[in-house]
């Protein structure tokens, strides 16, 4: 069988006699050293190796669990004026953390029942401050998250269309972007929230939006109008490079529709950039929301947000400083951990920073 073939001098036919079967030791060298990995799993592994990012994730998880579970445990509502024995407790204003009002003490002595402590004290309208700070955190986080998702959706769609269409469409769409981008954003945000707050009330009364409150709604409108531009530019830039790839050309050659090419081939490839930018958008949205609430333009009373709580505490800064300290520290904690998480995600997923 293996008899040497008669070979032509210049033939490239392989001479099998020159080869021997590989030994087991040699075979083992060819085995894959590490498990195969996907882009996402690789990124997560890197993220988990970053102690700051892991710390931020733990803090955020603890915070989110607290704001979900704690309101079920504590017997006070965020807008509920404290009552003792069914009667309004007028002595419960501006209590220090972990103290009881006179009426509550008397009640506890009389009945021997232990009332739930006011962990952060109470505010000037006799409401439990812990419940208010928790609810404020909930409002701030929700606003930050949904505003960022809104910005992402508008930005990605706009950027994708502009980048993929190219030519004159791209030019016009990007000029619009340039103009919105050059507007002084926070100035416009303040202005628009003033105006929307005053004008929206009539337009939405009776619809489902009314339950959101005009201030909350105007916040979202303002974000949707002004902040998507950065995302749109980013996505467009990514798409301009990705659409030059051969697989896009291949897909186009076999007659794939543009919408499908965008969804199946292009957008998944800029996903990492989008994720990073959303992660960094959330803290800046929380920043803006608390800034507006601090100016009195954010969510409406009695709904608290961290910014409006800090603003209310300002009037009694001298006598009750703790009312400022709690919401202020909460804002810092949230923004800090979200920033650290965003930085971690960027280090883990941004291919440009890979070594």
């Amino acid at each position, binding site marked *: 069988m293996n008899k040497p073939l008669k070979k032509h001098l210049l033939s490239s036919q392989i001479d099998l006699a020159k080869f021997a079967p590989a030994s087991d030791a040699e075979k083992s060298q060819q085995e894959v050293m590490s498990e195969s990995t996907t882009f996402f799993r690789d990124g997560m592994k890197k993220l988990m190796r970053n102690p700051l990012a892991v710390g931020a994730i733990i803090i955020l998880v603890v915070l989110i669990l607290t704001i979900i579970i704690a309101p079920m445990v504590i017997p006070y509502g965020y807008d509920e004026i404290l009552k003792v024995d069914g009667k309004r407790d007028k002595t419960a204003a501006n209590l220090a953390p972990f103290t009881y009002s006179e009426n509550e003490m008397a009640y506890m002595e009389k009945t021997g029942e232990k009332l739930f402590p006011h962990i952060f004290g109470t505010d000037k309208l006799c409401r439990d401050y812990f419940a208010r700070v928790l609810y404020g955190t909930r409002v701030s986080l929700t606003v930050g998250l949904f505003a960022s998702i809104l910005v992402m959706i508008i930005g990605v769609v706009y950027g994708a269309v502009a980048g993929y269409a190219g030519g004159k469409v791209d030019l016009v769409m990007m000029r619009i972007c340039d103009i919105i981008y*050059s*507007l002084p954003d926070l100035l416009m945000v303040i202005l628009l929230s003033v105006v929307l707050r005053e004008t929206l009330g009539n337009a939405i009364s009776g619809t489902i939006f009314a339950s959101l409150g005009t201030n909350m709604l105007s916040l979202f409108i303002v974000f949707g109008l002004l902040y998507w531009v950065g995302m749109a530019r980013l996505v467009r830039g990514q798409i301009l490079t990705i659409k030059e790839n051969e697989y896009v050309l291949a897909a186009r050659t076999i007659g794939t529709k543009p919408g499908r090419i965008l969804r199946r081939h292009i957008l998944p490839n800029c996903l990492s950039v989008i994720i990073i930018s959303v992660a960094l958008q959330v803290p800046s949205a929380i920043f803006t929301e608390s800034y507006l609430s601090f100016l009195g333009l954010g969510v409406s009373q009695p709904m608290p947000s961290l910014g409006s709580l800090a603003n209310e505490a300002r009037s009694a800064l001298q006598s009750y*400083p703790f009312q400022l300290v709690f919401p202020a520290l909460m804002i*810092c904690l949230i923004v800090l951990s979200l920033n650290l998480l965003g930085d971690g995600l960027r280090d883990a997923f941004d291919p440009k920073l890979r070594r």
Partner: protein
Amino acid sequence: MAKYVVKRVLLALLTILIVSAITFFSMYTIPGGPFSSEKALSPAVMAALEARYGLDQPVPVQYLNYMRQLIFHHDFGVSLKTGRDVFETITTGMQVSAKLGLSAAAVAIVCGLVLGSVAALNRGKLIDRIVVFFTTLATSVPSFVLATLLLLVFSIQLKLVPAWSATNQSYVLPVISLCMYPMAYITRLTKTSMLDALNQDYIRTARAKGVASYKVIFKHALRNALIPVVTYVGPMIAFIITGSMVVETIFSTGGLGSYFVTSITNRDYPLIMGVTIFLAILMVTANLITDIVYKIIDPRITFD
């Protein structure tokens, strides 16, 4: 180059026009005029007042009148609440705001450059970690939170810095609360660009031929590391202006920012318009100058 400058100037002018139009028209969609908060006025008095301030004409006409006054006579109108000239109000407000803003900008740039360079030169050492920790912290504290906390700790609890009054005008706390975020940002920028510059071949060449190390750092590394920092100056000015609105209100220093906040609650249309347009011009001009300077000092950038 000239083409680029013309393009940028035109965009800046367009932006200012758009800002003024948005401000003007949106102000008029708010229900309730400037006179509605006071005692009920008889219709005749109301009509007379509206005619006096030109409020009875159609809104587009009012806008054109306003812009004509603004462009040809530098006239921002008269405040409906105080009766003072808006332009005069702005200039008096600017005296406080400019001092505050410029000192904050100066502190931010100087400290940011120093901290960033120190961190880059001592990469991985303790001092670098301290600087990184500080910048992460400083970028996570909103200026209004920092301002109120500073006021609480230093003015109220420790009584080190007296609260703002006519006789005692201490800029220390407002400047600190304004400059912290930009300073941290500049530190980060300087650090990355300095590290980038230090790895370049020309630095090795300079070191190899025996140039003194301070000369290498200042003449070769820092000068190139400065370029990205220049691009941040425009956004920094915008940040300081918006930050000054809350900071000036918190420390009750007076100034343009706090005028803006009160004019909004007072529905003082001419003052809101005047301050918005003025601040917008300031921000847009800062961005314009930044962009042009950036193109001039970095010859590697191609003009389109």
